[in-house]
């Protein structure tokens, strides 16, 4: 709750700052400061979650429901955002003139993230998703001169709006199908037993729209183009925090509202997961541009995250938080490195280890984490997901498929590592590196975080059940 309100408020603050402050580098500091504040507030709420004392005692009619679980998630996301600001803040300033507005929009998105992490009624879900999407349409198109950016924005917007329509249709059918005639998750949930057709229809439609937002196949088509077209900083943000939040919402919705009838819709998840894993990994193999490769890899990772819905048990929930944390950290890091490159193709990374050992090392850690090598957070995430899936016990072939796809993913992640360490840089033109010592240190910190999480995932998981 604290975070929800404060993020919104800080968004407005930044918006106004944009109106009055002309200096381009100020907004970043305002944003970082605000974010620290918000994290503190949220952390306090998390500590005192059992006493239930919060700064803003608004009676929200339980439309937003905060527990240690989703507060922890929010904290993780806010921390990731902080890292994102710290690592890529300077690059946000490079995108265009409206720096403060960009930050404001990001804060609005964060507000949406908080909402979808805590929503308790379909209305809030809808609004949350929208408040995430609309600023993103803009951020995607924020590089106005760049046609790629335009195209990405247009595609994203049209398809996003389309999926919104589908989601609303789903909500409508759910509403019509339940005797309780309510949008509240717990009211929708009507025990085991065959679901009425209307609920089923609504469920499928919701599933589809959420899969769209989570970029799960076959509703992933927007992802590569948008991630590729959007300014890289914002891609980094979209691909990590936003995606994570959507997944969290996805899980929350289907666990609270449809958890009791999971067996009836699990087959859909199986189909989607399989398709996502295959398409994501296969397509990533071919890519020559690292940026686009990461876009596809984000789809592939989504395939793994879908195991949370496939399993829908305690381990799955813990796993999702862990996975999103690991994935976000690594992706933010790798994008932060990517932004510094002149040449986004894999060959552009050739011999990076010689030119920028620190960047190369950090990038290696991130990539290893994404591959899921032990001692990195990525492994813990994958491990929990597999654990959850095997615990669930059905469709073990899907698990096998998943690990084989993980092996494929090693193929494209390691291509970058190979380029950095084992290939000689071919371009004679020496690029000037906009790499401050602070940046390097931050990268190393991020890498360290990943390894710490890889060794002791308890650090997060213990918070979930405060």
């Amino acid at each position, binding site marked *: 709750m604290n975070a929800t309100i404060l993020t919104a408020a800080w968004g407005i603050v930044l918006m106004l700052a944009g109106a009055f402050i002309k200096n381009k580098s100020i907004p970043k500091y305002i944003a970082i400061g605000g974010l620290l504040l918000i994290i503190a507030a949220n952390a306090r709420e998390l500590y005192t979650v059992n006493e239930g004392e919060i700064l803003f005692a608004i009676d929200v009619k339980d439309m937003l429901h905060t527990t240690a679980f989703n507060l922890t998630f929010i904290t993780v996301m806010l921390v990731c955002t902080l890292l994102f600001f710290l690592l890529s803040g300077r690059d946000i300033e490079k995108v265009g003139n409206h720096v403060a507005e960009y930050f404001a929009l990001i804060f609005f998105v964060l507000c949406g993230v908080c909402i979808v992490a805590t929503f308790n009624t379909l209305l809030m879900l809808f609004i949350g998703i929208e408040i995430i999407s609309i600023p993103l349409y803009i951020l995607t198109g924020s590089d106005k001169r760049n046609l790629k950016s335009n195209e990405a924005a247009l595609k994203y917007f049209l398809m996003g709006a389309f999926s919104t329509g589908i989601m609303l249709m789903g909500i409508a059918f759910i509403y019509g199908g339940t005797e309780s005639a309510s949008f509240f998750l717990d009211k929708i949930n009507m025990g085991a037993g065959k679901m009425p057709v209307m609920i089923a229809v609504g469920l499928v439609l919701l599933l589809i729209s959420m899969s769209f937002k989570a970029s799960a196949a076959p509703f992933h088509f927007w992802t590569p183009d948008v991630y590729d077209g959007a300014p890289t900083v914002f891609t980094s943000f979209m691909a990590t925090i936003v995606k994570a939040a959507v997944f969290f919402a996805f899980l929350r919705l289907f666990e609270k509202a449809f958890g009791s009838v999971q067996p009836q819709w699990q087959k859909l998840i199986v189909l989607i997961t399989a398709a996502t894993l295959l398409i994501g990994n296969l397509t990533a193999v071919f890519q020559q541009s690292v940026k686009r490769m990461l876009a596809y890899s984000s789809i592939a990772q989504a395939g793994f995250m879908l195991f949370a819905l496939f399993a829908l048990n305690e381990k799955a929930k*813990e796993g999702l938080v862990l996975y999103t944390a690991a994935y976000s950290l690594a992706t933010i890091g790798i994008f932060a490195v990517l932004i510094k490159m002149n040449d986004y193709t894999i060959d552009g990374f050739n011999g990076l280890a010689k030119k920028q050992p620190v960047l190369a090392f950090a990038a290696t850690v991130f990539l*290893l984490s994404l591959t899921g*090598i*032990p*001692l990195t957070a990525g*492994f813990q995430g994958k*491990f929990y997901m*597999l*654990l959850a899936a*095997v*615990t669930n016990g059905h469709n*073990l072939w899907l*698990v*096998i498929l998943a*690990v*084989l796809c*993980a*092996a494929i993913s*090693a*193929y494209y992640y*390691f291509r970058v590592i*190979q380029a950095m*360490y*084992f*290939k000689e840089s071919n371009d004679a033109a020496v690029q000037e590196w906009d790499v401050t010592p602070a940046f390097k240190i931050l990268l190393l910190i991020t890498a360290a975080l990943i390894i710490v999480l890889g060794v*002791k*995932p*308890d650090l997060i*998981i213990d918070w979930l059940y405060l």
Partner: protein
Amino acid sequence: MQTLGLRFPELLIWSPLIAGLLCFIIRSEKNAKAVALFSSIITLAISFASLMYAGDKQLSGLKDSYQWLHQLGASFNIGLDGMGQLLTLLTAFSFPLIFVATYNTNYKNANAFYGLMLLAQAGLMGVFTAMDALVFYFFWELALIPVYFLCSRWGGEKRIQATFKFFVYTFAGSLLMLIGIIYVYLQTAGNGEVAHSFALNAFYNVPLTYPQQFWLFWLFFIAFAIKMPIFPFHTWQPDTYEQSPAAVTMVLSGIMVKMGVFAVLRWLIPLFPDAVAKYDTLIIGLSVFGMIYASLIAIKQDDLKRLVAYSSIAHIGLMCAAIFSSTSIGVQGVVMQMFSHGINIIGLWIVVDLIEKQTGVRKISQLGGIAHKAPVLTIMLVVIALANIALPLTNAFVGEFMMFSGLFKFNVWYAAIAGISIILAAVYTLNMVQKVFYGETNAITATVKEIALNEKIILSVIVVAIFLVGVFPQPLFNLTKDAVTVILGKGK
């Protein structure tokens, strides 16, 4: 609180790990070399010291040491039983050898090289001491990563493809094993606060139904088979050996390959007795065919490294077959042979490396007459080669003798067919000796000089070890007897 003496398992992991990280930090390459050598000797000392506590229940770590991932009932549980001690000893023994033998080779940014080597050592130590499935898996993967970097950074011409194939291959295998581990874990009965447990003895006592065993078996076996490697999962090996730098090849073939064999003994046989009973004929068949197959291919090889690689495949095939004969004598032989083979093959690699360094070629057909130029080298090589073909009174004889008789107990014909490989081994080994060392010198080998002192020392250490173990194997048997009985006790 354990006494210091019983912290040996941890020490065995920490000392190379810390030294490895140290190597990365220090800039000077000379010092890195020294640090590596020094730490590896320390590790050796620790490992020797740990022998004094052999068979100590506390040392064999069958009790929780550190809480770790407590929600999952995993704990950082490591210990040394007889088999573990033998293999940690092998690991600790090999690394100084390797470092000294390659002391004169100068790698570019050597500190990274030695750092990674030591990390690999730490990983291997972990694998051999793990008493907890999750810890085991962790180290199983961790041992792989540094080796991957070593190979593709300092390797030969086609290193990137070769080692990458190797990496993905083994990675896929171990992920399958991870699924298996998780599945078994979910069947285990945990203690009070957690539902399940990853602890070794929990795994040993897990009740698995027949059908479960039959498919779980494969999840584990494929991972191990790739690592060992067993025909037909072996094709990564010759390429990798060919492409890797000598020191790494030694680690790979000397120790890493043993990971697979070790894992089969530690995890596969005790966990899935019925599956083993069901599939033993099939797998022994594969292994035996693999032996003949590899030996025949070895005859055709013109590249020294590939030849040794294939001969190693043949030897491993025998080990695998002997394991699955699940006779105590056969398994005892395998444990023995893991140690012997490790030493011998490292010796072989050292010789191969020396030749390549001096002549710049590995093609058998281009070499010849080295015996005139470097008699000491020749004698050493001949001894090691003879050990490689398991001549009596060399270490390999004992192991192979027992493995064969175990195999024979299992099935006469398998033993007979497998026996053919010892003839073939003689053929290709002696061929190699003749073509490379005997005959007249040629343009390439004319310049060969006698080997340097450090190499002499190393090789003689190896030779002494070969004969020592070959004549007095009994101490090693006493060391590992109990471990074997445990394995097979579970297996029955």
